[in-house]
């Protein structure tokens, strides 16, 4: 039978272990850009992506989503740009545990126009980022309010 002190100690250990798990998400496999997906901020992400220039806001990048998301588990978002020479389009959610949600490689056969659905833990700014072939990084942002978080149990 455990006394209260031992129990508290034990809980603390477990909590630490859990925190450890949270800090280091599942190990990345060969091709997958693990470090990019572990980034917590735009600055970290740009470092992980080897971006050469600082991100700049641009009207030519668009992010389409409704301002209020009723269900944070399923937030439809479309990202697009009309600019030529896009290499990659990224979708970021600022207040998620890891900022990068999805990265799409743009080939010559494609328009830089993607849509998907993401989870959002809470109301947050969402970014559409276009990484250009010439090294420029352009983005558009929008605040999406979430009434029901998508990351809870």
């Amino acid at each position, binding site marked *: 039978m455990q006394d209260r002190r031992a129990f508290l100690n034990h809980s603390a250990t477990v909590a630490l272990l859990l925190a450890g798990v949270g800090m280091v*998400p*599942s190990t990345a496999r060969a091709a997958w850009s693990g470090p990019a997906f572990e980034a917590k901020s735009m600055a970290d992400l740009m470092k992980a992506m080897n971006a050469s220039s600082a991100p700049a806001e641009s009207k030519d990048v668009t992010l389409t989503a409704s301002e209020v998301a009723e269900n944070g588990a399923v937030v439809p978002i479309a990202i697009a740009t009309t600019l030529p020479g896009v290499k990659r389009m990224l979708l970021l959610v600022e207040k998620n545990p*890891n900022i990068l949600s999805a990265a799409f*490689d743009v080939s010559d056969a494609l328009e830089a126009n*993607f849509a998907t659905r993401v989870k959002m833990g809470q109301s947050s700014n969402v970014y559409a980022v276009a990484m250009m072939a010439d090294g420029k990084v352009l983005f558009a942002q929008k605040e999406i309010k979430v009434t029901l978080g998508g990351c809870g149990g």
Partner: protein
Amino acid sequence: MADPMRIRAQIEGSKATVRVLMQHEMETGQRKDSAGKVIPAWFIQEVSATHNGKPVMTAEWGPAVSKNPFMSFVLKDAKAGDKISVTWKDNKGDTRTDEVVVA
């Protein structure tokens, strides 16, 4: 084996919009079960598509993409009868490919 994807490729002029609905848990690795244990992450990491056998897009996803993910992309140059195939691979190494004919 994972459940099939639903793919629809729709012609608009010379372009084709491809919409894909996958069946996947997309577990984030952030949630805990009722016993307080972390549910291990299980999510699609890589998605790729080919157009008549030629690779046209790849995407990398994190666990923040919703359960049973939806994705759409636009092909610049496609016609009816073209074949589009989509493949995903998750962090456990499971993979699935489905093909659709542009209509």
